[in-house]
């Protein structure tokens, strides 16, 4: 270690006080940036949820005046309080965009990754603190551009979060804002992912070799590679679509396109399928960006609360790497219905079946980790435990979609909506809640109230299933996912009661978040104060003070053992932290 440690002689006491701007707004400290990311993402998650709750009104009571807030959205969107189809489409597109790109990913990677990962590897900060700050502000600008798009003529992007051409090329001006916003968001994730990878490779504490890394760090590592390599093709695609929209090129526009009887002024020769390929080349790895860090959080919480090492840590890590690799060669299973040809479909169906294997290995390892554990049913653990069956439902219902024969019936129905929401809503969002309850004491020095937390958990758990379970039946009844009013069709009208049930579930789920919001703010001031390691955990973030000061650790940590040394035979306590040479 001759190279590094002579650089490391600074004294924290000598830092001059930073101005308010440098300390809280334009901070280069990974912890502040992590909090900025997390808070912004939580606001966007709430916003995305609100858009969806509005859509659920139109779905449950088509053409009825929306009570209370119906008149707030202007005559252009909701004349007399009744939602127009265009506005419904914009809400749908922006719900997806906001939840994926502005909510979940910034929360998991920008928030948890930024805050926890450097602490878990014993680093004083990220490798490139200024780039880290730039990453947050690029994300912020991207978010603002997306929000502004609601107020341009024609409203926000309304071609679905997938922005399929040629619809999106011909769409209103909001789509241009969507593309520009995406360019900022992609830049942000590029800056972030370079930083994550370099930090994990270069700044691990002495003794922390790769197979002593907490599973969460591994998850962030693989995720960063997905972000680094999968996002640029979407940036390329966004540039091409911007050219189509602004410079009149026809990359995605076929020859002789006629819309509503009007021939379109494009030279033609383009390929709408090209957009789908480029989009899904990003968006399938993106699915794993949404789930891998969530698995990382759940693994941390489960190991900590079963008081046992993770069962099969190494196979889990290998599965993670294999998942990351495979996620680049399954994208066209979103496109079985486009007529790509049976040979290509067969290839992507095969890779899709293969990629389910490592997911199952990870989930099985987590379930077996529970076996004969001395489980503490605290709030983070409840969310982590709920993650397991919820993610399993999401994953297993994906298998019929990965096979072209059954996909023909289910494609673009509510079944698909149910499937991927089980993965990201009760799956990833529950993991996010587990992470918030687990690391809140580290960030604030206080715990969240456990009684409110349990109310939050049980209500959310019940209602989130009320929201999504009916969708499988609607989908199998053939209801298309983008319908503005399914009662227009007999087969949709027949299952309208399920839609209404789903909507009521969504609104009740919204109310179930009130205990959490209350808890989150109240505990800042009134939460029980705790020491630096309230969960008696082994990983390095708990060796730092709560909240950790600038530079994180009072002394540079050295690592002596693996990440989950719980209940080691022959020791006095049931946990043996990574940074202790002998039991204290």
């Amino acid at each position, binding site marked *: *270690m*001759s*190279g*590094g440690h002579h*650089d*490391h*002689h*600074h004294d924290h006491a000598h*830092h*001059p006080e*930073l101005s308010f701007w440098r300390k809280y707004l334009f*901070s*280069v*400290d990974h912890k502040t940036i992590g909090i900025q990311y997390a808070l912004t993402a939580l606001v966007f998650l709430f916003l995305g949820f609100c858009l969806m709750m509005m859509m659920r009104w139109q779905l449950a009571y088509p053409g009825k005046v929306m009570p209370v807030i119906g008149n707030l959205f202007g005559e252009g969107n909701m004349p007399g309080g009744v939602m127009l189809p265009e506005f419904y489409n914009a809400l749908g597109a922006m719900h997806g965009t906001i939840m994926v790109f502005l909510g979940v990913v910034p929360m998991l990677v920008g928030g948890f990754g930024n805050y926890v990962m450097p602490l878990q590897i014993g*680093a*004083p*900060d990220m*490798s*490139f*603190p*200024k*780039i880290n700050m730039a990453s947050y502000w690029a994300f912020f600008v991207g978010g603002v551009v997306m929000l502004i798009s609601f107020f341009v003529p024609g409203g926000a992007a309304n071609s679905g979060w997938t922005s399929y051409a040629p619809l999106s090329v011909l769409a209103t001006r909001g789509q241009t804002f969507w593309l520009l916003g995406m360019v900022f968001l992609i830049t942000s994730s*590029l800056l972030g*992912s*370079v*930083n994550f*990878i*370099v930090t994990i490779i*270069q*700044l691990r504490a002495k003794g922390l070799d790769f197979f002593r890394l907490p599973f969460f760090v591994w998850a962030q590592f693989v995720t960063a590679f997905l972000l*680094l*390599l*999968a*996002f*640029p*093709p979407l*940036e*390329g*695609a966004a*540039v*091409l679509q911007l*050219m189509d929209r602004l*410079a*009149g*090129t*026809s*990359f995605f526009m076929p*020859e002789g396109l006629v819309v509503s009887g009007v021939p379109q002024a494009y*030279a*033609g*020769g*383009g*390929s709408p399928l*090209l957009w789908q*390929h*480029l989009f899904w*080349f990003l968006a399938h790895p993106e699915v794993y960006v949404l789930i891998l860090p969530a698995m990382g959080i759940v693994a941390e919480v489960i190991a900590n609360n079963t008081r046992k090492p993770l069962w099969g840590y190494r196979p889990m890590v290998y599965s993670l790497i294999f998942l990351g690799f495979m996620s680049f060669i399954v994208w066209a299973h979103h496109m079985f219905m486009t007529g790509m040809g049976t040979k290509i479909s067969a290839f992507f169906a095969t890779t899709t079946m293969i990629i389910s294997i490592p997911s199952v290995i990870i989930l099985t390892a987590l379930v077996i980790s529970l076996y004969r554990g001395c489980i503490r049913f605290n709030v983070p653990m409840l969310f982590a435990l709920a993650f397991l069956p919820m993610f399993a439902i999401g994953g297993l219902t994906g298998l019929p979609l990965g096979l072209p024969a059954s996909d023909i019936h289910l494609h673009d129905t509510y079944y698909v909506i149910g499937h991927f929401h089980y993965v990201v809503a009760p799956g990833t969002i529950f993991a996010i809640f587990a992470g918030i309850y687990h690391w809140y004491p580290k960030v604030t020095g206080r715990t969240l109230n456990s009684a409110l937390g349990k109310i939050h958990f049980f209500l959310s758990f019940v209602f989130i299933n009320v929201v999504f379970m009916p969708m499988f039946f609607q989908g199998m009844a053939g209801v298309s996912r983008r319908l503005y009013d399914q009662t227009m069709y007999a087969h949709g009208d027949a299952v309208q009661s399920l839609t209404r049930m789903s909507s009521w579930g969504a609104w009740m789920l919204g109310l179930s978040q009130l205990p959490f919001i209350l808890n989150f703010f109240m505990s800042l001031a009134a939460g029980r104060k705790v020491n630096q390691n309230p969960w008696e955990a082994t990983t390095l973030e708990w060796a730092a003070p709560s909240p950790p000061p*600038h*530079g*994180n650790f009072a002394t540079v940590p050295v690592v002596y053992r693996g990440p989950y040394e719980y209940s080691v035979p022959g020791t006095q306590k049931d946990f043996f932290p990574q940074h202790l040479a002998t039991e204290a």
Partner: protein
Amino acid sequence: MSVAVLPYTVKPHPVTGVYSGKLGTWLFLASEVMLFGALFSAYVLLRVGAPASGPAAWPSHDATELSWKIGGFNTLVLIISSVTMVMAWASLKLNNLSKARMYLGLTVGLALVFIMVKLLLEYIPKFQAHHTPSHSNFFGLYFTLTGLHALHILGGVFVITYFIFPGSSLWKKDPEYYTNRIECTGLYWHFVDLVWIFLFPVLYLL
């Protein structure tokens, strides 16, 4: 001092053998490969999928009116600029800042020659001949690919100019740090050069 002092910003890591900035630059270039890779894939797909005849058919080589002489000249200019970039870094290794700044200046000069040739001899005449991006997918791709490449060149010009003038004060404080930054800039510059080496045959010769 608001940045915590981090190890391996200047000195290489004993195990990986690189300093953090260099590793970060390589990762950034990996993502750039994916960006241009996607656009080259789009080129292949659109060209292969173009109708055999009609207005949307792929133009014959003559109809593109791209001169391999102008393209070849620009290729040469960029290759020489890559050489001067290496010379700048080598001069810093030999402790000669003024010579390094001279080579960096030459690199910027050559980059500007490239841009001016592109603009005056290619872009403007094409627009005058109504060979705009909307004319056909060939010209759409031509302008998108070369335009994105030109933006990369301008980004490089901006960074190198910064290191010639205000950025060079770092040399007095920490010469090794400054040399590393020039090395990373050089890696980027060679990459931009390499993209052109792919663009030239694809657009001008094939």
